[in-house]
């Protein structure tokens, strides 16, 4: 569950990540267009690979940020006290 501040932070961060990644890809493609030589396939993998990893990371981050809080309960067998 996200608080309002955490929600703002999360989506601001996601926006910066997406804007940055799109900027990187557009810049890379501009550089390729100016090149007289054909762009090797592996160069395309190097450009798009990190972008795809980022998509997966953002998906996992959303899952992490919105999961319910975990409450740890420590039970000491020698006492009758339960600490949260």
């Amino acid at each position: 569950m996200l608080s309002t501040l955490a929600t703002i932070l999360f989506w601001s961060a996601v926006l910066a990540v997406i804007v940055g990644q799109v900027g990187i890809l557009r810049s890379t493609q501009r550089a390729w267009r100016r090149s007289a030589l054909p762009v090797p396939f592996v160069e395309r993998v190097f450009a798009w690979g990190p972008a795809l990893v980022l998509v997966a990371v953002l998906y996992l981050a959303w899952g992490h940020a919105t999961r319910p809080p975990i409450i740890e309960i420590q039970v000491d067998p020698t006492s009758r006290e339960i600490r949260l």
Partner: protein
Amino acid sequence: MSPAPDGAPAGAPVVGDASALADAPLAKDLIALTKPRIISLLLVTTVAPMYVAGTPSLLTVLIVMLGGYLMAGGANAVNMYIDRDIDDVMTRTKLRPIPSGRMHATAVLAFGVGLATAATWMLAVWVNVLTAALALAGFYFYVFIYTRWLKRSSPQNIVIGGAAGAFPPLVGWAAVAGRLDLTAWMLFLIVFYWTPPHFWALALNKQRDYGNAGVPMAPLVWGEDETIAQMWWYTVLLVGLTVLPVAWNAFAWVYLASALILGGLLLWGVWRVKQAAPDARAKPSWWVYGYSLLYLALLYLAMAVDRRVLA
């Protein structure tokens, strides 16, 4: 190998005399092969995540630091062995032990492999196998993926090759937690996305060197303007990434404030490079290169402090 001054055998200092050891040419060369200045930053990005992942004992921290130094030092030595042909034509590197003729290339290779082997053994025996495997993966990535393959073949050499420098946070985390979670991988990604603007700031000022050596660094292949544009977008992305873990409470306000202030300064620095005229880029890009080192160290220290303050 060159003999020590006054004809004494190299590497034979007076026992217990640290200054004599530092003055011995062989000892100095062996230390130089490990690139200690670069490793100091790697150690910060190794140790800080240990305090984020849990509460390590001092002994564990010392073992991981020593293992990390040996592994990174071994990788750097093997890098100097592989790059011995181009180190000779770059002013920045031609005084290194191999191109200057002070050490034989095979000895350097054996030294590097020996260090990596020792590091793998000590991390596996005294810490855990995952930590040793991650450190060794970083070594292989640096030696084979970056140095052997990408460095001389792709303008994205330091983008993908930058992953090698991002292994230390995983190593530190695994040493304490024994496994990796999303926060650990975020620390990996932060170093991964920090590397391009950091190295391209250097490359902008060392284009002639890289050109002479035939290394296709981005400013030479894509041009300065496009490289600087990419530095900007990588920095925007990096600042966003550094804030992200706060959303799932991996860090709190100490880290958040540090990430925003340090990131804001880095953005400002890259923006100055972007706005500078082509003949006035040297000064702001040197500033970005120097500050980005401080940025990463302080960001990782802030993570550890944040966790300790919360604790």
